[in-house]
């Protein structure tokens, strides 16, 4: 099922969707978005690629095994939670630092960002590995 229209559209949409997923993830703390939906959109962009060009191409787009993404995501989320433990507070208590970036202003960084990144990666990994596993099997038959 190779469609020229879909392939052309996918070529432009894939980077846009990928960028959009990162944007959603980053703005999530103040505006609609977040790691969960960001991860889903990133997964959707990859699956669009898989539909248009086939799963092997989509696999090449992702530089890493989706299964490994799951592990990295879970570990990041757990690591973000452990920061609180190391400070002697309950697990998952958030910690924040304020950075002064010259010419850019003030930047607040906190463990929830790392946690959300973990969610992003885990959701992306889970969705893509489930869908690709099913899609690949079907292509093999």
């Amino acid at each position: 099922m190779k469609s020229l229209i879909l392939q052309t559209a996918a070529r432009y949409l894939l980077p846009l969707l990928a960028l959009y997923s990162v944007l959603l993830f980053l703005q999530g703390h103040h505006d609609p978005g977040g790691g969960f939906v960001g991860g889903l959109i990133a997964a959707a962009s990859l699956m669009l690629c898989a539909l248009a060009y086939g799963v092997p191409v989509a696999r090449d787009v992702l530089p890493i095994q989706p299964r490994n993404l799951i592990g990295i995501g879970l570990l990041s989320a757990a690591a973000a939670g452990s920061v609180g433990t190391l400070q002697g507070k309950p697990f998952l208590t958030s910690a924040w630092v304020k950075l002064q970036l010259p010419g850019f202003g003030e930047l607040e960084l906190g463990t929830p960002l790392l946690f959300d990144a973990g969610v992003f990666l885990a959701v992306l990994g889970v969705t893509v590995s489930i869908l690709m596993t099913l899609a690949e099997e079907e292509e093999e038959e």
Partner: protein
Amino acid sequence: MDLLVAVLAPLAVAPLMPLVRRFAGRHVGDVAAAIPLAIAVYFARYVGTLGDGQSVAFRRAWVPEIGLSLSLRLDGLSLLFVLLISGIGALVCVYAGGYLAGNRRLGSFFGSLLAFMTAMLGIVLAENLLTLYVFWEFTTLTSFLLISFEHERQAARAAAMQALLTTAAGGLCLLAGVILLGLIGGSFEITELIERGDAVRAHRLYPAAVILILLGAFTKSAQFPFHYWLPNAMAAPTPVSAYLHSATMVKAGVYLLARLSPLLGGTDLWTVTVTGVGAVTMVVGTVLAFTSYDMKGILAYLTINVLGTLTMLIGLGTELAAEAAMIYLLAHALYKGALFLVTGAVDHAAHSRDLRELSGLRHRMPLTALIAALAALSMAGVVPFFGFLAKESYLHAVVEAPRMWPLLTFAAVVASVLVVAGAGLVAVAPFFGTLSEKADRAHEAGFRLWFVPALLAVAGLAAGLLPQTLAAPLVEPAVAAIVGEPVPLELKLWHGVTLPLVLSVIALAAGVALYVSHERVRSVFDGTRVLGGWGPAAWYDKGVTLLDVVAHWQTGFLQSGFLRTYVTVILAMTAGLAGLMITHFGLTFVERETIGVRWHEGIAAGLIVAAAFVAVRSTSRMRAVVALTIVGFGVSWIFVLFGGPDLAMTQIVVETLTTLLFVFAFYRLPKFSILSDRATRFRDAVLASSVGIVMTLLILLATGVDQYEPTSEYYVRSSVTEAHGRNIVNVILVDFRALDTLGEITVLSAAAVGVFVMVRLVAPKGGRS
């Protein structure tokens, strides 16, 4: 703090052992031995300072809410055990480095062994009973890994599982007993409980607590009728058997009894049960030893005998008995450790441990034969070995027992006779006589394999020759800790002609006589094998089989494997229970100011309903899926209308991906057809509608509840101030309720792994793989 470091040091180093193995090569065992050796040296400085019942304590809160504190205490009893654990641990590490040389999993072996060491040190240093329980279970887990080290062998796996199930079941009893004790005494700290001892013993729940704790101790220390797991655990590599199943882990139960006897002891229940079980175990162990031809098996049964003796002595509760127990404990650690390691050397050199295949080994392994003889003489209780002192002191304690002394003395003498003959079985039978075929091919094992047992055997001789100098400083503080007051101890070989000495000599003579004719007597003992058919081991097997059967039936009953059944059950339960609650509390709606339905809201609702009908009535799978997607999009439209952009966005993406999932799954589905009859469809329709109605009612009811401030108000207030974010939905997900999210992504990950495994790793039908 120092205590905590000492306890955790082996565990901290454990993960590095595979790495150490890579760099240290065949010296990995010697490197690993450095840790326990350092611990032994560190604690050695306390020898001679704890004689009057002093102790060193460390305490830190762990989970204060449940009274769990990380409190450790070093007193005389702990010190004796710590030195045994670390000292013999160091020796076993060196020995194992030689015994398992070349094994490709040597690194992880030492990792498990060191982790086990932490667990053992934790048990004997724990001051808080819950802390003790944590370390207790940690020994169970690490010993599982060690017993099943050669996990390619089915016997090793079964033995490890048996030991795990038996001791973990006992461990759960112990936990229940400890919690009861904590509730009765109002504390989990052992010293605090001992101060309130009278109140604890008078409490009506005291018997329950005692029985539960005893179950824990008895399973761990292989007391009758839980002794069956110990001989099977000999499937472990010999260094493990020597360390866990002779010197340390099986003594944990004995340690616990000794530790708690000032608190729980002295009552009829305690004395009769502990003494009785100990005495029975003492005799059963020796009798069963004669049913085995495996050198390690015999040693295991003889260890059961010793554990029984120690238990009996602690049950007696007299000062003499406490003394005897500690002396015997030390003596046994020395001679039994040596004998196990000698057996390992024989196994290594002759590739057999079977007495029927081994004889005359002394021609090929003279050094090993000498070591075995030294250790066995101590075991038989021959002057001037330390074992003689041990035997005399426990016979003394039994003779002067406050009650049942004739019976106990008889049992002790019978057991002693059999132990002497057993010593002959492991130290004389394989080494003397004509050279057998297997023995002929043997050779003296490597340096580590004779040097380590030799150290232990010679220590047994030295301690016998200079008991007051070498053994008393260790034993005296331990006895003081059990009895609760300083006990001056005078250890010497010659006490004059006393009843214990006479009994000891009788036991020795009878034992030698029994050994000489053991081949003829064996048939009598073999008769006990028949009893084994009704024995506890058979009960264990039946129990496990029963568990399997029940699990199989229950899984079949609850898990039909049909998604439709699961969905039906879940929906019916939800609708039923929620509906019941609604009828129970009645329908009371709070009148609310309604704004009426705007026209575009009406369109969204109409679209959802219409699409749902199409999905149900459709005769094409594709059409049904698209209709379901429309339902989803309609729902997300409603989210948009009511100010939930985050929800709407997520819903749309999820709908898209779900549709994709359906499309990919289509290829694996058979052609669409309607298989259900009218009645089934009618039932499904009723179920679906009632779920819908119940949920609608529930929502209407829920909006009418306004007794409490909605939690959302709190989130709105503190989102920016506490969590530095304005998007409340996301702040809840990643900060306020981050633990939920962590749980959810973990579940998702498990689902992904499940899908992968089901699709990729299952052999397709027809056998193609």
